[in-house]
């Protein structure tokens, strides 16, 4: 019988490569375009009720199908009408977005989605993450973009402000750090001074080992290296003092940290921020108040602070904010003053380079099963703009990438000219 000692000491073939850790990571960041353009993805987790975000307040069916939760016409924030002349208004708590819209820096893309929309949160999120409705596994659309950056890719090329790495940021070769709270993103030791330093050196060396027959260990080692390689620069971001007061919630805190990273010139290309609670099966709230109004307030107030902070720093033209959710919700409310899982939703783009306005056309909410703007027997909104067309615009026109190869198809024809 093999002993534990033999197994541990000799049982595993391996070789060790020494990572050529660059002496000055910031040089790489600079070479890859620090203070260059960045993308901030804002994900509304749970399936946002887009019809109460961008309200078709002159569609009588909107009110007849949502007797308890419709936003009264008198409360919406007017944004004009779409190309078919359908008048629209924003949820009354979207005052920040309304302000940005009026500055011409908010693009709304109505009825975004895809054919045979999944009503599952998890499949839906994977589809939006991979941009591949037929096979939503493996690497994400932004991960594929990060994989195209010239090596060595800086450890902070991507920045995820949530605990779990979203599908969209999963890459083949690039690890994206998860920094849910930059203030606690630091390394501790049972010892201090030189001993703590010795320990950090040892941890770095141990994690530099690549056991060829145990890729799962390499994966964890990659995460350890990713943490150790990014700690000091994240600490630098922490010293940022914003020019505005951000709301006190995790989402706004994440946006504040992202602003710090942009201002400090870390060189991050893609940031990920999200806010949850959008799975509003019940108690959305009546007449523009209640739980959904709070969600809208959180979403909009944090974004406005971020927008103003970047504007004050003169960096608004470097940043593009892209908002999405995994699906929209059913048109008719249920008996719990909520809405169940539906199909198409709305996307938004915000930034100094954005051509503001309303893109795409609103659905008619007439429940007639023959209504071509709806699906599922008139229950759900049918998509008009494939979400990958919006992605293609972002990849091609903002990140300077090749959307055809990254999305596995040409979606440029249908791409709205949001930037």
């Amino acid at each position, binding site marked *: 019988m093999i002993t534990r000692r033999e197994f541990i000491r000799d049982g595993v073939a391996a070789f060790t490569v020494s990572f050529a850790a660059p002496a000055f990571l910031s040089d790489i960041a600079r070479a890859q375009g620090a203070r260059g353009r960045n993308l901030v993805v804002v994900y509304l987790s749970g399936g946002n009720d887009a019809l109460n975000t961008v309200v078709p307040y002159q569609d009588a069916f909107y009110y007849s199908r949502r007797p308890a939760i419709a936003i009264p016409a008198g409360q919406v924030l007017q944004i004009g009408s779409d190309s078919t002349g359908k008048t629209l208004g924003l949820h009354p708590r979207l005052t920040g977005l309304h302000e940005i819209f009026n500055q011409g820096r908010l693009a709304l893309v109505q009825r975004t989605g895809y054919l045979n929309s999944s009503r599952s949160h998890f499949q839906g999120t994977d589809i939006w993450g991979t941009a591949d409705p037929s096979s939503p596994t493996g690497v994400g659309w932004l991960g594929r973009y990060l994989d195209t950056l010239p090596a060595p890719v800086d450890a902070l090329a991507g920045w995820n402000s949530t605990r779990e790495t979203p599908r969209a940021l999963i890459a083949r070769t690039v690890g994206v750090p*998860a920094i849910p709270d930059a203030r606690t993103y630091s390394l501790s030791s049972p010892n201090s001074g030189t001993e703590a330093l010795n320990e950090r050196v040892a941890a770095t060396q141990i994690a530099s080992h690549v056991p060829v027959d145990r890729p799962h260990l390499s994966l964890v080692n990659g995460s350890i290296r990713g943490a150790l390689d990014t700690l000091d620069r994240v600490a630098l971001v922490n010293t940022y003092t914003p020019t505005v007061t951000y709301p006190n919630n995790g989402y706004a805190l994440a946006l504040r940290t992202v602003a710090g990273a942009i201002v400090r010139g870390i060189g991050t290309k893609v940031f990920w921020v999200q806010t949850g609670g959008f799975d509003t099966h019940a108690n959305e709230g009546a007449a523009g108040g209640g739980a959904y109004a709070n969600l809208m307030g959180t979403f909009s107030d944090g974004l406005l602070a971020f927008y103003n902070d970047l504007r004050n720093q003169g960096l608004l033209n470097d940043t593009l904010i892209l908002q999405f959710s995994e699906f929209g919700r059913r048109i008719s409310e249920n008996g719990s003053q909520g809405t169940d899982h539906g199909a198409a939703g709305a996307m938004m783009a915000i930034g100094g380079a954005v051509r503001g306005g309303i893109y795409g056309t609103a659905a008619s909410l007439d429940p007639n099963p023959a209504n071509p703007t709806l699906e599922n027997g008139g229950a759900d909104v049918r998509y008009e703009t494939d979400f990958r067309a919006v992605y293609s615009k972002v990849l091609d026109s903002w990140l300077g990438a090749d959307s055809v190869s990254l999305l596995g198809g040409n979606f440029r024809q249908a791409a709205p000219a949001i930037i």
Partner: protein
Amino acid sequence: MARENWQVEHVLRRAAFGPTATDLATFGEASVSTVINYLVDYEKQPDDVDSKIGQSDHVSVTTRGQFSPNTNIDDARQRWLFRMVHSQRPLQEKMALFWHNHFATAYSKIAGAFRAVQGTKMMALKPGDLPGPPGQIELFRKFALGNFRNLLIEVARDPAMLVWLDGRQNVRTRPQENFAREIMELFTWGVGNYTEQDVYAAARVFTGWNLRNATGGVATDPSTYYEFAYNAGQHDTTAKTFTFPIYSDGNRTIPARSAADGMQDGMDFITALAQHPQTARRLARKLWNFFVSELEAPDPAFVESVASEYLRNGTEMKPVVRYILQSEWFSNPDRWYSRYSWPTEFVVRAVREIGWAGFSVDAARTPLTNMGQTLFEPPDVNGWELGAGWFSTGAMLARMNFAATLAANQRFNVSRSATSYRTTPETLLDFFLFERLSPSPFDSQPYNELLTYLRAGGSWTGSDAQANTKTAGLVRLIVGAAEYQLI
């Protein structure tokens, strides 16, 4: 106490929370089948772990005023961690964790609707401690290796679930689809087996499965409680037709029934889902990942065998789990250390291996959140992102930092335990790698890095001061290394 009983250690890492030094002494000479039966037939062991809370020789809990695990969620977390560290029925706690992930329900939504006291009671009330039905986690302990169909029925009537997936508001006129969809997508057979029409029909099945305040008291009163209530007046009595068979004769329609008999709709529907081969296979795949390996996709032969065990035994889980633990799939040495530990498993195993004298499980709560696993607060109804998904940089940093916290806390105990191994850095390292801790193998390069660390900063004397510093640093390095994250 050389640790040479590999297969037993493997069982204790997977089907328990890793061996303590006492376990190694107890099970060192035991046969694998003895250990498996000891774990699986856990009802033969005493269920007295809660009575040990506060006793010496056990990990501590931190009290703020009174320790209130039935009404304060942080104390409920402490109680569960204490159970995982000290229970004589570790597989029961492990399966409770499995079901908590499978039926992932988050306290914050419950507390948002019914305040902290009721939210904690719905998640964690221990039967008899206060009036009211058992908390959800007690359901998972009760049915840890019980009948899956019966567990599903209990879950459908569980107050926390009725709040979490909005069943409490499922009414006849406009049914509510949340629970109806997730019971198919996540709790049983998975996406791809049903249509939107099935979701509509299932929502109608559960109309009237609501919740009521049984005492009429205010939410902040610990004696107030909520319970399941079948509200016949809100049940849709018409027939419900599915795209798949509900009955063994192939009939796809649940017949129209009187409102008084309407609960039978749900029983019929749940029974059909629980007994469906696709549910059996999906459970088998989840159990493969939980017990056998996360590095290989489930072996189709395993899935079919486990699924048929499950169906043959009338959806009983105990024979299924015993079958898995006794199988070649499980015992194959290629699969040792082939599962990524969950943060809770990592923390509990570290405490059990390093020591707990003077340590409070409360000190693990915030680190667990940073590692990505707050008990009673899964991120969504799909549970945690398991496997490689645990290992984001921020989460790994939290694991390393917890190793540092625990090593610092246990510095003197750890150092003292190594007294007779201090002669050279090599003897000290071997003691920790091979006897004191149970990491997966360190290759020679990282092994030498650990030696380099021990030698750094001056010549080796083996003095108390040197040992106190270096053993703490060494334990932190081993427990914070990739090699320790696999079980």
